[in-house]
């Protein structure tokens, strides 16, 4: 019931949302990450996401699996885009459904936080003044704990 992918094409959030949900589920949550026009006070014109594709696909599948197991019978789908993105374009879409809303919120938040901690994806911002820079990220832990922690 769960799915995940690293893609180069634009993401359609409605399509990701349509991957999940069932008659047992009272709550569905869609998280959409979008390239915004500023970061740390600088005006951003666009970004490029690089990736270690084979590993990223595997890590994203693990994160989705962990979230699904933690949230009682959750249906989970996550897609991360890589390559060149313009302001307003979707970088990540995460959909979760679950019988009750608490688990769905928890699983949704878990996935985006774990993506930021350990998905091998890097972001280079292109600023309006022509400069570029790699976004300061997080150093992945060598043994990520496979449990869902508090929000």
């Amino acid at each position: 019931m769960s799915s995940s992918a690293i893609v180069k094409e634009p993401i359609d959030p409605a399509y990701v949302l349509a991957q999940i949900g069932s008659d047992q589920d009272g709550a569905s949550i869609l998280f959409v990450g979008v390239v915004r026009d500023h970061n740390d006070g600088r005006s951003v014109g666009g970004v490029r996401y690089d990736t270690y594709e084979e590993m990223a696909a595997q890590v994203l599948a693990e994160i989705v699996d962990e979230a699904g197991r933690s949230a009682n019978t959750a249906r989970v789908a996550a897609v991360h885009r890589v390559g060149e993105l313009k302001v307003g374009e979707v970088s990540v879409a995460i959909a979760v459904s679950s019988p009750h809303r608490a688990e769905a919120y928890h699983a949704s938040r878990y996935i985006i936080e774990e993506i930021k901690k350990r998905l091998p994806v890097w972001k280079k911002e292109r600023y309006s003044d022509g400069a570029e820079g790699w976004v300061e990220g997080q150093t992945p832990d060598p043994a990520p704990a496979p449990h869902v922690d508090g929000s």
Partner: protein
Amino acid sequence: MEIRTLFFASYKELLGTGELCVHLPDGATVSDLVSALRSRGGAFTVLPTAPAVAVNRTYTHPSSLLNDGDEVALIPPVAGG
């Protein structure tokens, strides 16, 4: 033994390459690989002494032993999402 070593993002830009084949003595660890790279001098000395590393696509401790044919990636701080 021979280790396929991968560089991404800022490391790739720094070194001007995304991949190197590194020869190491048997029994070498992840740390030994990083030391061997840094000892090449030039841009290599700018690599962290203990970067995050994935061996065969799994995050691994610096003390882990390497095996011939391993794919080792040096992972700059990640920034997905």
